[in-house]
Structure formats: structure tokens, C-alpha cells
């Protein structure tokens, strides 16, 4: 299925948010995930499923003033 991931169109096979993060080799502890503009609590990554056309944002901390 195709999703919009951080503004880029991507084809993914992950079924849940947790699987998506694992497939991208991202440590869930240091990121925040937004699914269709809804910020997900980390505890929900296991249960929240991804559907075709979803818009997902994964953010983290970078250097800034």
C-alpha cells in the first residue's frame, strides 16, 4: 500500500506503526508519530494499523536554538 511518509509517497508493507518504525530502523523511544494529524501515544504503536493513503509524520529532535 501507499502512504505519505514525511511528505514523500512510499510503498510499505508494514501493518502497524510499530512495524513501520522497525522497517525503517527507527528507535521508537526518540520519536513522535502523527497519523493523519493525530499524535499517537507510544503505547498505541503496536495496535494502530496503517491503511492505504494514510499520512504519517515521524519527527525527532535535531540541533536548534
Amino acid at each position: 500500500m501507499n502512504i505519505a511518509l514525511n511528505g514523500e509517497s512510499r510503498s510499505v508493507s508494514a501493518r502497524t506503526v510499530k512495524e513501520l518504525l522497525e522497517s525503517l530502523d527507527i528507535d521508537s523511544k526518540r520519536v513522535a508519530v502523527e497519523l493523519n494529524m493525530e499524535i499517537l501515544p507510544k503505547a498505541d504503536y503496536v495496535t494502530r494499523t496503517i491503511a492505504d493513503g494514510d499520512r504519517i509524520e515521524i519527527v525527532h529532535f535535531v540541533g536548534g536554538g
Partner: protein
Amino acid sequence: MANSDKLVIAGREFTSRLMVGTGKYASNEETARALEASGAQIITVAVRRVNLDRSKESLLDCIDLKKYTLLPNTAGCYTADDAVRTCRLAREAGMSDFVKLEVLGDEKTLFPENEELLKAAKILVKEGFTVLPYTSDDPIMCRKLEDIGCAAVMPLGAPIGSGLGIRNPYNIRIILETVKIPVIVDAGVGTASDAAIAMELGCHGVLMNTAIAGAKNPVAMAEAMNLAVRAGRLAYLAGRIPRKLYATASSPLEGLLE
């Protein structure tokens, strides 16, 4: 005197009154060394999309997170909605309620958009965030932010990244008399004396990024700022002499040779 002198923000105590940003350094390694030299305990970070190709190492991999309190900012936000969204994401990513709230008015000056700032601050305080807003050096604005429930106010000394120093020390003094929460000068510092001046005015802290990261030797400048903030604070606590137009001799007039 200096050892018992602590900065208290929302009930949390800090021995360092210098807060530093982590942007614009040549490398993560340089950032880590500058942070160490600055003695800062609170460091700002920005919230951005993860780089999906994962080619760059992350800043947080390079610094000792036990040493620092992360203060996520809302840099680049021009509306209250964007700033609130960024703070909520930051809380989820960092598991902390501390946020440096900035809502900008335009790209050229990066001056705060005060109406949107107040709007965002109200929402965030209600949601339990510890809000440290970057604001104009306007005592009325600072009073409003305090009334809303912000944990500190962070008036600018001069435009972000300008290095112009504290352009309106009189406003900063009035702000210090107006609010009871900590006043932290955020933005405008160019060199060590600027930081010392802010502290001598009685400010509770100083936040800077470019003055350190943009210096020819950022690690040395970080140490200079560390010393300047401590020197300025000590001088404030010590109480300076009044300014006088004419001289007063330091040596006794008695016993002069005739």
C-alpha cells in the same frame, strides 16, 4: 553565595544560568564539546522530520542525556496552531513538559508574533506544559504571559542571530520589576560582555545559540559565556557602586608627603 544561588523554573532547580542552543554547529561532536564547556544544564533542540535514509547520525546519540534537560523549541512556527502541534509532538518524543515557545511574526526580523504567542501559551499551559516563551522585550506582554501561567519569560535582547547585544536594557529592567517569574534573555547576545550585562541587570538566565556556534572557536566561546554569566550574576548579587561623574580618590589623603 554563588553555590546556594539556584535558578528555579517551575519548581526545578538549576545551578547553571546559561542555556544554550544546539543548532548551527559544524558537527555533533563539536556541539557536544561546546555544551560541555558552557556548563549549561538546559539545552534547546528543534523538532523536525526524521531523515528516512538514516545516513546522518542523530544529535542525541552524541550527547550525554543524563546531564541535560532538553528544551524543545517551536522554531519556524508562524501560527499558534503550528506551535501547539510542535509542542505536543515534542512531549511525545521527549516525555517532558518543558517547551520553549516561539511564534514568529516574519522571516526577516524573526520577531515574535505576540497575539499568536499568547493564544498558544494559553492552550499549552492548560494542557500542563511548562511554557518558556520567547517574547518581545515588552513589559506588558511579559505580564500577560505571567498571568496566563508561563513558567518564565524570555524577552529578546536583539533579533535572533544578530549579535547586537542587549539593545534596550531599560525595558529589561522594567520587565524584571514587573514579573515574579524568572526572566531569561533569549537572543541577541554577541559576545561575553553582552551575557554579563544581561546578568548584571538582574536577569535570571541567558539563552543563546549563534553567539557560541558561530564563533571562530565555539568551544572557547562556550567557556567564555559560562564565565560571563557567572561573573555577571555574582556582580549583580554583590551590588555595584553607583555611577558618579567625578573622581573619588582610592588612596587616603592623610599622611601625604609635604
